[in-house]
């Protein structure tokens, strides 16, 4: 499957999420931000404390009834970049911290592992946030938390037309492949023509959309959405207090 096809599937599945969201999306956003702030402020050498922060994704998956193993595997997408940057640590930090079966473990290996763990945990927290509630609910949550309306409108527009334009690009690429007699890969020149053609189609589509929206009374921002909106409950307040207190304790109290 090509990147384009994968992107089409990812965008289609992201709009509603998996429906396992057990709390209000605003509560989840605040909990995630608190978790990331506390987790990323742990010193790189304090690996044990950092690993304990994995309890949040594990427990969140259990509460939502989804597999942590799958989430873990999906979060490994972040590994190539963090390993590339972190792998230099063992070469620069050579102080021995402890010895296991005669093998010296240096500070560099501890901080390298710490970088990898930080990358994985932050990715898992993000996936829990968006995967459970979906992008549309996430945007509405952001709006009710006070982000400017123009940004949430822009994000909703972008997300809505992403699927359409990705399909357009996929159709164009398939048409080119069908006429290409097995030739694979776009040269820079033909890529420029491909992207330029896509751009001109895009502008045409944007003009049609604008006319249709103006005809329906569009005034620059999306109307508020009231149907089936989840309200903030006592359980959300409790969850927010419990989670944030737990993260602060994990960060500052020595076990």
């Amino acid at each position: 499957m090509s990147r384009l096809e994968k992107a089409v599937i990812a965008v289609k599945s992201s709009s509603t999420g998996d429906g396992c969201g057990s709390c209000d999306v605003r509560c989840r956003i605040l909990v995630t931000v608190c978790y990331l702030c506390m987790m990323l402020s742990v010193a790189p050498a304090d690996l044990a404390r950092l690993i304990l922060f994995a309890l949040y994704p594990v427990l969140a998956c259990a509460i939502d009834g989804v597999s942590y193993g799958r989430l873990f595997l999906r979060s490994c997408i972040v590994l190539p970049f963090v390993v590339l940057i972190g792998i230099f640590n063992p070469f620069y930090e050579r102080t021995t911290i402890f010895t296991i079966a005669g093998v010296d473990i240096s500070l560099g290996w501890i901080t390298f592992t710490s970088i990898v763990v930080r990358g994985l945990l932050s990715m898992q927290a993000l996936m829990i946030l968006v995967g459970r509630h979906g992008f549309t609910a996430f945007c509405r949550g952001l709006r009710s938390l006070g982000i400017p309306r123009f940004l949430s409108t822009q994000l909703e527009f972008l997300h809505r037309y992403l699927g359409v334009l990705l399909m357009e690009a996929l159709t164009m690429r398939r048409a080119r492949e069908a006429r290409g007699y097995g030739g694979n890969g776009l040269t820079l020149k033909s890529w420029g023509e491909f992207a330029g053609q896509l751009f001109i189609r895009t502008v045409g589509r944007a003009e049609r959309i604008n006319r249709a929206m103006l005809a329906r009374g569009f005034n620059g921002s999306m109307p508020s959405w009231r149907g089936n909106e989840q309200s903030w409950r006592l359980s959300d307040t409790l969850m927010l207090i419990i989670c944030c207190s737990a993260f602060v304790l994990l960060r500052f109290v020595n076990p």
Partner: protein
Amino acid sequence: MSDALLSTPVALAGAGLAAVLIGVAGHKIKKNDDSSLVPLMGVMGAFVFAAQMVNFSIPGTGSSGHIVGGVLLAALLGPWAGFLTLASVLIIQCLIFSDGGLMALGWNIINMGAMTTLIAYPLIYKPIARASTKPWRLAAASVAACVAGLELGAVMVTVETWLSGITALPFLGFLGLMSAIHLAIGLGEGIATSAVLVFVAKSRPDLLVPASAAVHSGKKGVKKAVIWFAVAALVVAGGLSFLASSDPDGLEWSIGRLTGGVELETAGNAIAEGAENIRQTTALMPDYESSFSGVVGAVMVVALVWAVCSVITSRRKKVTVKDEQA
């Protein structure tokens, strides 16, 4: 940039700076009062996203690449609208495609968005391209602006990583590595951007003229923005280097002032001694140093919780399936 390489103060400073820039961009677009710009920006963001998903082959290397789109968006929408559109693309990439991370998002918006649309476009692209649609001018302007924008982004990543103090890479070594990689990426990005712009200049030259002069801020406005941006960056960098120092953080400092040491010590009493004896007897690895035992202990706690949660989840699923069958 990834969450893994950022410390909390640096990440929050990036988020704050990006929020300010997004606010300014929103204000400029609102002032423009052009309702057609909103859907155009949304669809243009989707276009850049779709174009990013189609790779072009890099001659002589056997590999392929794709565009980032900052200079392209600025050339088609103007700097502020281009910045806001690219920021939305980066937010969606972060949330749906898990690129970067939530805490690194602010810096990613600055590194990839602000550096290309608000710095490289007005200071390099515009003076070279002017209002011309000649292919050589568009190509020279695109390549120069993309190389400059990506190099600036690379420098910013190095500074952010250095201020965070997570990686042990020396500043100059990391800077050299990042600059070399981004020089090649910038050249590719510039050629790809110019290929699209030349095609658009031939087919629809009217589209190269920005939607509105107000969004395409004038020379004075851009200069003002650059000065503000530079001052903000200096303040943030100065503040962060203080925060990223090896001195204890606020809470540790307070504890230090109160107790004379950074860590709280346990008062010596019979209960504490008894607990310590029990710990020594029952510890799985009493001979190893505490840091290793701590790591193993933490892994065991997480593994145990995971195992318990997996059992509960699988039981819950079985019950749900039975209920559905019934």
